[in-house]
C-alpha cells in the first residue's frame, strides 16, 4: 500500500522518518481504518482539514488502537513537509489540535535549538486539549503537552528522539536563556526575590 515515505525525504536522526514511530505501533496505524480511509493521499494542505477535526490527542487506547492524532503524525513523517509549512501550522492560532500535532512533529524532527525556540513560546498557550489514553479521556493543556514534549522521553506512546537538556545548550552558547512571560511580568512588579515563590499556594 501507499505507506512508503515520500521520495527525496531526508533521513531524520539517521533513519527513515517513519521509523521514529516504533514498528509495532506503526503497523497498527497502517492497519487502522482511519489511516486507510482518511489518510490516503493526504498532502500538507489537505492534512490541515483532517487535523482541525481532531477531538483528542493521544497514543494508543483500548486494544492498542492508534488515535487519529497518531495516524496524522505518521502521515506528516511520511510526507515530510517543508519547515516553513510546519511554522504555518504552529502559528495558526485558532486550531489548537493542529498546533499540538505540529509541536509533536517539530519535537521529533527538528534540531534541538529549534525545538526549544519554537516550542517554548507555546508554553503560554493554556487552551484545553483532550487526551485519550488507555484509561479513557482526560484533560490537558497545550502548555502542559508542550512541557511534556520538552522534558519527557515518551509522549503519546512515542519514544522521542534525544534532545540535549536546555542547560547544556545554554552552556554551549547555542541557546539564550528561556524567557517566561509570567516571570517577566512578575519581575516588572518587583525585581527582588520573587522568582518561583510567589503565589505558589
Amino acid at each position: 500500500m501507499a505507506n512508503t515515505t515520500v521520495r527525496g525525504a531526508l533521513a531524520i536522526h539517521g533513519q527513515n522518518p517513519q521509523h521514529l514511530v516504533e514498528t509495532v505501533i506503526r503497523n497498527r496505524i497502517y492497519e487502522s481504518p482511519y489511516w486507510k480511509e482518511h489518510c490516503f493521499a493526504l498532502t500538507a494542505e489537505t492534512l490541515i482539514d483532517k487535523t482541525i477535526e481532531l477531538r483528542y490527542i493521544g497514543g494508543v487506547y483500548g486494544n492498542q488502537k492508534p488515535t487519529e492524532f497518531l495516524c496524522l503524525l505518521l502521515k506528516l513523517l511520511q510526507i515530510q513537509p517543508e519547515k516553513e509549512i510546519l511554522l504555518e501550522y504552529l502559528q495558526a492560532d485558532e486550531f489548537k489540535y493542529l498546533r499540538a500535532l505540529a509541536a509533536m512533529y517539530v519535537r521529533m524532527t527538528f534540531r534541538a535549538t529549534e525545538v526549544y525556540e519554537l516550542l517554548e513560546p507555546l508554553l503560554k498557550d493554556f487552551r484545553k486539549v483532550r487526551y485519550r489514553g488507555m484509561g479513557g479521556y482526560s484533560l490537558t493543556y497545550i502548555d502542559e503537552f508542550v512541557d511534556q514534549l520538552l522534558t519527557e522521553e515518551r509522549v503519546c506512546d512515542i519514544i522521542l528522539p534525544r534532545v540535549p537538556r536546555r542547560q547544556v545548550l545554554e552552556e554551549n552558547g547555542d541557546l539564550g536563556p528561556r524567557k517566561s512571560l509570567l516571570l517577566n511580568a512578575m519581575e516588572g512588579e518587583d525585581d527582588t526575590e520573587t522568582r518561583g515563590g510567589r503565589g505558589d499556594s
Partner: protein
Amino acid sequence: RAHLRALGQTTRIERSTVAQVRARIAYLREKTKEASSAKAFDFEQRLAEIRA
C-alpha cells in the same frame, strides 16, 4: 496501486507549497471565525494585571 495506475492516477502524491498551506489556513480560519470568537481573551491584559 496497480488499480490506481489503471485508472490513470499516479500513486505519487503532489507536494503542497507553503502558499497553498497558508491559503488553506486562511480559508479555514474564515470558516470557523464565528465559532471561535468566544475565545477573544486578552492574555496580555491578564499579565498586565499581575504587574499591577
